[in-house]
Every structure is written in structure tokens, then in C-alpha cells.
């Protein structure tokens, strides 16, 4: 509500400045909040809890970016988007950042003119079946009815997998996770397929989780990552390096608990550069010197966020697997801060 309060009132609108042409950073600062596109409800990644507060892995990333840019992790407006609306929401400037289980693919990056700023979760599409079916491999699924939660590239991978293995299936595409589960549990589908992380989350919420198994096949690569509009390099740098800061923090052992202590200065120059006590990396991005500290302070480093939202201690219970630090045999790797 800047210059035209009466207009906004008249149409009950909230006109906000900010669109593809302008510098996103300035717009975010002018608005005083970050508009972050998330999914409409996927437990563990982005879902409102019982009191209505958004929680999850993607949500935490939004909060970290808000903390880095605005200094306050709570200054985020979460915009729920569906698979259909997410790209328009980003392209039209309705959101500044899309952190919504979106697979990084060539055409999305190039043809749709978005910049994927990195991968924050390496996922892959898997299958879940009831134990009583006695299926051991996805290749045994000839003739099965498959419930698909539409959204990422699920339908396409599924078609490719069954086609290349020359087996038939019957797809039942369902829009929301809740309805897909209902279909699966009532036996209207033999198999439920979506990203493995989503399957684990879904299975965790079942009454009898033991009666369902995940099949060993992971049929696709689903690098999920936040994305921004093409063409605003400063903004994509900020988002990219916020993600990198969270990853580096885990690698260097900087946690939300020891953050204050670390900031007093350490013997490790990279930590000092990261936390802004040495050099002026923040200024290069157009942010405060302690931007990364605020980002880490918001919800913790990458590992902390993972453990808190989708890790083994949570109902979702995902192991780090591919998403461990590169030093631990995973793929999570950040370029150096220097």
C-alpha cells in the first residue's frame, strides 16, 4: 500500500509494487515482506500446522531468505500455489521466489524463463504398494492401477518407465494428496506413486504404516529446488547464496545454537567470511554484512532444517541419503565462500 491507498481500498485490493521488470530486491525491501510461493499442503515440506503457521522444509528456506534480506524470518507472505498456477505466479510477479517441490528440468529453466538457483532436495519418484500384494519390484506391476499425485513431473516419468519396460498400467491422476491417499487405501489403486519423500510422508500418516512398503526402484531424478525469474541476477545471487550459506554452515559446523559464539570470531577464516566478521561478502550482494548469520539464525543450517522438518526424528522419517553433505557421501555441496 504505497502511493494509492484509496485505490487499494476502493477495490479492496492490495496493489503492490514489484514485477519482472524491477529489481526484485528493492521491491521486497519496499514491501517489507517476501512473497514466497509454496505448495498448498505437503506435510514436511510446506503445510500449515494446527494453529495455522506454515511449517516445513521449503517454508524454512523462505524464512531464511526473508531473514537474510529483511532481517526478520517472519516477514514472509506464503502464497500457496498448485502445480498449475505456480509458474504464472512466479512469472507475473505474484511471488518473488518459488520454493515448492519443483523439479529442475531443461525446459523449465530455458523455455519457461526461470532460474533454478540450486538443489535443496534430491528426490526421485518411487512406488508404494500394500504388503499383501507381494510385489517386490516395480517391474512386477504389469496391469496395475496406479494412483498419481499430479504435480511435479510424475505423470511423465511414470509413462516413460512403463513404456521402456514394456508393461501396461492404468493411471489415475489425482490432484490432492489427501484424495490420492483415499483412493490408494480403499484399494481403488494398487500402487501409489509420487516423489519418494512424499511417499514416505504419506506412509507415515497411515494408520497401519507397516502394511505398506516402498519399492526399491526410484524411476527418476527429481532435483527439487527453489526458483526465481530469469533476468534479475542480483536477486538470484541472493537466493542462491542464501541456500549455499545454509549448506556451508552445516559443513563448517555452524548451528543456530553456536551462532552467537561463532560470530565473536573464530580461527576459521571461511566461517568469519560467512558470518560477516571478515571481508564484505554481504555488501557484494547488496545486503548487510551479517546476512548469512541471520539466514542461519532463522531456522538453523541445512542439516538442522532437514532434521527438524523431514528428518528421521519426524513422522516423515527421511534419511539424509543423497541429501547428506558431500563429505558424508551425499550430493549436498556448496561452492566456497571467498
Amino acid at each position, binding site marked *: 500500500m504505497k502511493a494509492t491507498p484509496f485505490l487499494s481500498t476502493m477495490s479492496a485490493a492490495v496493489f503492490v509494487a514489484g514485477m519482472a521488470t524491477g529489481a526484485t530486491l528493492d521491491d521486497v525491501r519496499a514491501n517489507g515482506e517476501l512473497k514466497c510461493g509454496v505448495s498448498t499442503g505437503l506435510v514436511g515440506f510446506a503445510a500449515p500446522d494446527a494453529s495455522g503457521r506454515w511449517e516445513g522444509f521449503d517454508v524454512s528456506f523462505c524464512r531464511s531468505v526473508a531473514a537474510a534480506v529483511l532481517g526478520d524470518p517472519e516477514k514472509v507472505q506464503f502464497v500457496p500455489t498448485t502445480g*498449475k498456477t505456480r509458474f504464472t505466479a512466479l512469472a507475473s510477479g505474484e511471488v518473488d521466489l518459488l520454493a515448492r517441490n519443483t523439479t529442475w528440468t531443461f525446459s523449465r529453466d530455458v523455455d519457461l524463463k526461470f532460474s533454478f538457483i540450486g538443489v535443496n532436495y534430491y528426490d526421485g519418484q518411487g512406488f508404494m504398494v500394500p504388503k499383501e500384494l507381494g510385489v517386490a519390484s516395480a517391474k512386477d506391476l504389469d496391469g*496395475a492401477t496406479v494412483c498419481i499425485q499430479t504435480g511435479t513431473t510424475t505423470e511423465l516419468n511414470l509413462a516413460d518407465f512403463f513404456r521402456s519396460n514394456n508393461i501396461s498400467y492404468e493411471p489415475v491422476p489425482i490432484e490432492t494428496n489427501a484424495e490420492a491417499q483415499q483412493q490408494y487405501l*480403499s484399494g481403488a489403486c494398487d500402487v501409489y506413486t509420487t516423489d519418494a519423500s512424499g511417499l514416505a510422508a504419506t506412509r507415515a500418516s497411515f494408520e497401519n504404516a507397516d502394511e505398506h512398503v516402498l519399492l526399491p526402484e526410484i524411476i527418476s531424478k527429481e532435483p527439487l529446488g527453489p526458483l526465481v525469474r530469469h533476468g534479475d541476477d542480483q536477486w538470484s545471487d541472493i537466493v542462491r547464496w542464501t541456500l549455499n550459506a545454509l549448506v556451508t554452515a552445516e559443513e563448517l559446523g555452524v548451528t543456530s545454537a553456536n551462532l552467537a559464539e561463532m560470530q565473536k570470531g573464530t580461527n576459521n577464516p571461511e566461517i568469519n567470511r560467512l558470518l560477516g566478521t571478515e571481508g564484505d561478502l554481504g555488501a557484494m550482494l547488496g545486503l548487510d554484512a551479517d546476512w548469512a548469520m541471520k539466514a542461519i539464525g532463522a531456522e538453523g543450517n541445512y542439516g538442522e532444517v532437514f532434521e527438524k522438518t523431514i528428518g528421521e526424528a519426524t513422522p516423515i522419517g527421511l534419511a539424509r541419503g543423497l541429501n547428506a553433505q558431500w563429505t558424508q557421501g551425499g550430493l549436498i555441496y556448496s561452492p566456497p565462500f571467498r
Partner: protein
Amino acid sequence: MAITSDPPKGGFRVGMLFSDTRYRSLTFQAIAAILLALAIWYLGSNLLQNLAAAGLNISYDFLGEPAGYDINQRLIEYDSRSSHGAAAIVGVLNTLLVSVLACVTATVFGVLAGVLRLSPNWLVAKLMAFYVEIFRNIPVLIWIIIIFTIMTTVLPGPRAFRGDDPASTMFLGVAAFTNRGVYMPGPVFNNPLFAVGFLNWFLVIAVLIGSFFGARGVAKWATNVQFETGIRPTTWYFTVAIWLLPVVLLLLFMGLSWNIPELKGFNFTGGLKIGGPLIALWFALSIYTGAFIAENVRAGIQAVSKGQTEAAAALGLRPGRVMNLVVLPQALRVIIPPLISQYLNITKNSSLAIAVGYADITATLGGITLNQTGRAIECVLLLMLFYLTISLLISFFINIYNNAIKLKER
């Protein structure tokens, strides 16, 4: 507007543009045209600017590219290598399929409920009133979800049919009602005349149409004989023969046999399958729209004045004939126009198929295709174009019908 007074004398003044009825309408139209052009220019330039800023362009090339996804319910050949355009056509056909099916059953439900609501039986009349009110006052989206949920949770899954002592058995051993859909015996030709499957069916339908005209001819002949001699010849065996013989002969010639579904692997295979989403959507649309049609039917019947019924009775017609010959023809005049607009509503409401995973046009073109290609503007425009075409076609027929039945007044 008619101008009867003499045109004012004197030269032209600017004020006359607004005050003189000869110019005023032109002035207003010019203003309207300018405003319209401005609005279009404003929106169009915004669109172009925004697209340029986002680096996007409007292109329909994606329709020719492989869709990459499968569709469970298809009336034409389609697999994941077919194009997005083919997926859209599959969607169009599915929309038309569910709409036509729902129109038929909604009419049946509606007419039954409308007539029964006027029944002298108190309980039945009240039940029908209850049906109409409860369906009319709850959103169709909620009904679709409720009916889909009922279907998936109440009907057994195919797994229940398995084992030595299955929880469910097939109906008469030939049909299975499962929450994935209904499996019925499907007709197969062992000796088809055409290689392409549906051409055989066209042949069967063509023969049936021929029988229809044959039967009409017989009836006409009987009427002529009745007019000449006063005695109507008995023709029912002719009619039955004309209806049955050709079609039975054709089917026998083509070697008709029934393919009975059986449980193989994960699913029933063979036979004819009507998918669960189709059934749920079909039933939900029929029963919801049926409530509206019932009201139209009731209004139509009540619009026929009581005098007509009494006059017919006074002529000695039996109640059945009073209904058929006097009340219905007059009621139909009132019933049919709103009935057709209910059909239009069914077609439009079928777009809610996305709630149940039925692959109609909104789910293919407006759903997965849009989702995968990100071509939002193009997809939505095509979607609107399709529905617009359908509804304009239907309005066209409404107008023809309305003109045909217009009361020929003296």
C-alpha cells in the same frame, strides 16, 4: 426511436451532438467505441509488455509435441508418445461422453422425480421434495466429492474378489462392481466385416436405424388400412421381426460372442470396463442436475391449466391418454427450453472432473498439459474456445426449437 416532430431548423451546433436525437445515438456509440478501443489497447499493451518482460511468447507449437503422459479413459488411440493436441482431443471426447451420458440419466431422474413429486402418494411426494431440495442447495463440487468418496469406500476393491473364499463375488458370475469401476461382459466379433472396430458398430447402428424406418413404415401402412377399412391389422409380429431379425442376423454373421471379465493379476481384464471416475462424475452430475430438471418438469406440468385435463377427461380419454395426448405436449413446450439449458450446465459442470481424476478436457489440456508445458495463456484460451463452441451450438438448437414451437397466434 421514432421521430415524429419536424427536424429543428437552423445550423449545426456542437451541443446538438448530445441533445438532438438524430445525432445523440451516434455520439454515444462513438464514445463507446473509443472507450472500448482504449480498453483493448490498454489490456493488449499490458499483455505484450508483461510477456516481453517475462521473456515469453504466445505459441501453439506445444500442441504438436509428445505429451508424455498416459490417460486411463480414452475413446481413441492414444499413448504417451501422442501429442498434446491428441491428449486434448481425448479430453474433448471424454467431456462429450460424460456430458451425453449425464444428460440422458439426468433427464430420467428429473422426469421421474418431477412426476413423482406431484404424485398423490404423500410419502413419495415428500421424499422427492426432499431429494430436490437437498441436491439443489448443496454445491455440485461437494456432491461430486461425496459421491466419489462413497464409491471408493463402499464398493470393494478387486482384491476382495481374490482367494478361495472371497469377500465379494461377481454379479451373476459375469459382472464385477469394484471401486475402480464396473466390469461387464463385452461384445466381441470373431468374424468382423471391418478391420477397424468401431465401423462394425456403426454398421449395427445403421441396421437399427433401418429397422426403425421399416417399423415406421409398417405403422403407417396399418394406419392407412385402418382409415380405409376401419379395422387395424395386427402388426406387432411384423414390427418385432423388423426390429430383431436384421440385427440378429448381422450379429450372428459377424460372430458375436461375449468376453467375460476375469480377475487376472492386479485387475479384471477383458470385457467392458466403465471407469470409476467416469461413473462417479456421471452419477453426480445426473443426480444433481436431475433435481433441477425435476423442478422444471413439475413447473411444466403445473403450467398446463386444469381445464385442459378436465376437458380431456370429459371427452372420455383415459388418464394415460390424457397425459400423453393433452398434458405432455403442452408441458413440453414449457419444459424443453430450460431442459436444454440444464444440458448446457451439465457440459459446463463436467469441467469439475479434475476433482475425481476423470480425464476430460479441463484435466488434460487445462490440467496436465498446462502443468507440464507452462503454456497457461494458450491452454486456457483453447479451453474457453471449446466450451464456447459447445454452448453456442446448443444455443443455436434452442433457438431453432423455440422458433419451431412458438405458438402460432392468429
